[in-house]
């Protein structure tokens, strides 16, 4: 093992020029080849990269896709999103578990398999889904899971898993995925057939950079990643910052539960994304670009690399782009490591720098001092696509669509209980009810707009509109029918935030755990009315004192569900029986004593019979 480890570590470091900021790539390489990054390996890496073991350990323990303990040759990551849960991932998990003889979180004794749950992998429209190493498998059933498990046991070959390829570029040799695009509605901006290759870039290069920014400003384009910041303003701030180097970063981390529209753009509109990034670089004086691609989308990497190579060959990247003297710009792809928080722009920059994916202290903002201290713009995949289209179609064409403060169209990722889950390109301002109709949701009862940190709606709120003035969303739109347990959804979101909090600040790291504890208390039926005040109070502290957008919004499912479904809560709240303190459950308290004493209670468990052990 020793000699092998040394050579793997050396090769990985060499492949990335011993570059400290590429350490995530180095770790990925090592993890893949050695199935872990052990303490011994950390020591080697630290020596090779002139850093400290604790720094390496800090990274390995932060990102879900690295592990100190040895994993199997094949890692099966079952998508544990709420949509997948309702679609039956538990039954699928059971089959995998039985076939492979290991539980969740375990690795087989022959080191062939590891079985895990993972948060949303961006396949909610084809749930239940899983990642098997880099290969995506979708629409799983207990039967298909059995077939997959047995075939893997026989040949340990993941390439044989894709029997039928998906539509569009999913069938490309370099993608080779069974993933479906499920494009249900094409709009004028992004998914229609009127998208002309490089037209936006050609027009942009004929203008001055300031004019390009002005067009983006005039179009009213706002960020598609969720926060809705003015794209033109962001670009102009970065342009004004004094520095010789500026960076353009595309946020393809798409980790918000129920969002998968960036995946479809990456598959079908890769050129448009890179075109938009190139226009942005021209506008702000950018010198290099990075696409931060979530680890779950690694299956798209070879394809995207090929598109980049082709663009370099065509003179659309590199030096003197499009014949424009002195305009040099190139793009590299940075793979993430399995951490939702890296979608937050300053955490994303930390991650690109090879650090733990923790948000940075602001100010300074990325547009002033971002990647490696240089002015940086971070924009969502869809935002770059829109920018390229605005430069072609003109700001007025774009601003004519949508509402006053939300111009253009928006991609919605629709999932859950409906006949036609998938991607809908709709103008901003569309009503929730209209989306539900289009998607064929026949019994919509709960709608969650904007992902885990978004808003939960009851039927009476379906008149509301999707736009920054009303319901803003990065694109996640989940619908649930009347058979679904509302509190299970809330509980899942909190579980997600607890798992994905970076842990930097107190309120988010600890507060979310307390929120979940109380929601579970309600679910178990021994909460009282005062618990709702407790939840609201605690939510407010978390939202107001947290350091970044995650903690600033994580209590929203709690607050909006209390607001929208007061009757559900009321039906679960008790008065506190047995003459005991309200909110105290004697059974729960006894459970602990039973466990310690290894016997039942003489008074409270007459039917237990009091047998010891």
């Amino acid at each position, binding site marked *: 093992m020793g000699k092998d480890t040394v050579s793997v570590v050396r090769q990985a470091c060499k492949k990335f020029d011993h570059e400290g900021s590429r350490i995530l790539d180095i770790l990925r390489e090592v993890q893949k080849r050695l199935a872990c990054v052990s*303490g011994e390996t950390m020591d080697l890496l630290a020596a090779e990269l002139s850093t*400290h*073991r*604790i*720094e390496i*350990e*800090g990274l390995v*323990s*932060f990102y879900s896709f690295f592990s100190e303990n040895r994993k199997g040759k094949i890692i099966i990551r079952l998508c544990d999103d709420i949509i997948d849960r309702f679609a039956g991932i538990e039954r699928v998990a059971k089959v995998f578990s039985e076939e492979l003889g290991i539980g969740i979180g375990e690795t087989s004794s022959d080191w062939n398999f590891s079985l895990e749950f993972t948060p949303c992998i961006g396949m909610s429209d084809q749930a239940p889904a899983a990642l098997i190493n880099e290969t995506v498998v979708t629409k799983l059933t207990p039967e298909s899971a059995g077939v997959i498990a047995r075939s893997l046991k026989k040949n340990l070959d993941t390439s044989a898993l894709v029997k039928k390829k998906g539509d569009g570029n999913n069938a490309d040799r370099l993608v080779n995925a069974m993933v479906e695009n499920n494009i249900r509605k094409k709009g004028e901006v992004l998914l229609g057939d009127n998208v002309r290759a490089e037209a936006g870039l050609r027009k942009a290069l004929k203008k001055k950079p300031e004019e390009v920014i002005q067009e983006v400003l005039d179009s009213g384009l706002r960020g598609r990643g969720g926060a809705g910041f003015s794209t033109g303003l962001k670009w102009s701030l970065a342009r004004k910052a004094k520095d010789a180097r500026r960076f353009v970063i595309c946020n393809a981390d798409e980790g918000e539960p129920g969002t998968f529209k960036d995946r479809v753009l990456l598959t079908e509109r890769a050129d448009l994304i890179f075109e938009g990034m190139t226009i942005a670089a021209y506008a702000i004086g950018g010198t290099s670009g990075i696409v931060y691609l979530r680890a779950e989308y690694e299956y798209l990497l070879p394809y995207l690399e090929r598109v980049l190579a082709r663009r370099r060959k065509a003179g659309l990247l590199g030096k003197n782009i499009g014949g424009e003297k002195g305009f040099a710009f190139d793009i590299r792809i940075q793979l993430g490591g399995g*951490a939702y928080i890296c979608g937050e722009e300053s955490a994303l920059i930390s991650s690109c720098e090879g650090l*733990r994916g923790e948000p940075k*202290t602001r*100010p300074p903002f990325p547009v002033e001092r971002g990647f490696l201290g240089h002015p940086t713009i971070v924009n969502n995949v869809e935002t770059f696509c829109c920018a390229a289209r605005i430069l072609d179609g003109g700001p007025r064409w774009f601003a004519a669509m949508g509402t006053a403060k939300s111009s253009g169209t928006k991609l919605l990722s629709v999932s859950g209980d409906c006949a036609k889950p998938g991607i809908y390109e709709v103008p901003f301002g569309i009503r929730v009810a209209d989306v539900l109709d289009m998607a064929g949701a026949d019994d919509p009862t709960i709608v969650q707009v904007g992902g885990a940190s978004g808003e939960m709606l009851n039927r009476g709120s379906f008149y509301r509109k999707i736009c920054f003035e009303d319901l803003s969303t990065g694109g996640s739109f989940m619908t649930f029918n009347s058979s679904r347990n509302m509190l299970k959804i809330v509980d899942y979101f909190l579980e997600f935030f*607890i*798992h*994905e*909090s*970076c*842990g*930097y*600040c*107190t*309120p988010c*790291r*600890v*507060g979310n*755990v*307390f929120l979940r*504890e109380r929601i579970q208390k309600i679910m178990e039926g021994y909460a009282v009315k005062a618990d709702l005040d407790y939840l609201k*109070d*605690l939510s407010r*502290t978390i939202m*107001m*004192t*947290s*350091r970044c957008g995650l903690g600033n919004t994580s209590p929203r499912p709690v607050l909006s569900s209390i607001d929208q479904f007061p009757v559900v809560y009321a039906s679960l709240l008790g008065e506190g029986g047995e003459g005991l303190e309200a909110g105290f459950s004697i059974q729960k308290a006894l459970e602990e004593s039973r466990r310690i004493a290894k016997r039942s209670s003489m008074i409270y468990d007459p039917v237990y019979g009091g047998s010891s052990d």
Partner: protein
Amino acid sequence: MTRFMEEAAIESMAEKVGDIMRNAFVFNIDGVGVKGKDGQTIMDAADQAGIYIPRLCDVEGLEPQGSCRVCTVKVNGRPAAACTQPAAEGIEVENETLEIFNWRRDLIRMLFHEGNHLCPICEASGRCELQAMAYRLGIFQPAKYPYLQPVRPIDASHPDIMLDTNRCIRCGRCIRASKDIDGKNVFGYVGRGMHKRVGVNGKNLAQTNVHLDDRAIALETCPVGCIIRKGLGFFTPIGQREFDRAPIGSTIEKAVLKRGKK
């Protein structure tokens, strides 16, 4: 006495020159005018004015990191961490309102409930900043939240130092002291979310190059009682410890009263 006055005169002159050179300005904390300079945080300026903003992760001599959030104030109506937020001309800072007071109490409680804090048997009792902060904010028995009761192993590998992170509040003071003052990397963060904790640069503390003179393990570095000198426990009798004598923050408040600025 005369020397002291001379020193004070020079100090105030230097301050004035500095003011002119570094762009001085005025802003308000709870309606009281406070002087600030470019490059100062709200915390810096407040300290100078003798206004105490509660804090745990921030400490004199280390770069602020803004993680405990106990210093949360409102700046023009929006919450911000005073230890990292730059002071600026004309801003309205709220520090002592009921709303902020309650947030801070919640944060202190969270830190208590997250770890294992058995004050009566803790070596740091009486000089612990977490405990002192609870008293200052009027928390005498943290019972609002459930106790998470983590089980964290104790590192007793080193002959002279013991690391008991059961009380760790993840303030990172030991980490920053080691990096920025000692020029070492004895401590660092590992894990994520609830599992974020302080780790050491090696299998255990004995494997690191930690030294008894390191600032990282100095008594005033860890605000609670995680870093313990072996054979030196309970060196000051209870009742005579730092916060037994005066509440936390009073040195900052008193320093300015002495200088007669208020």
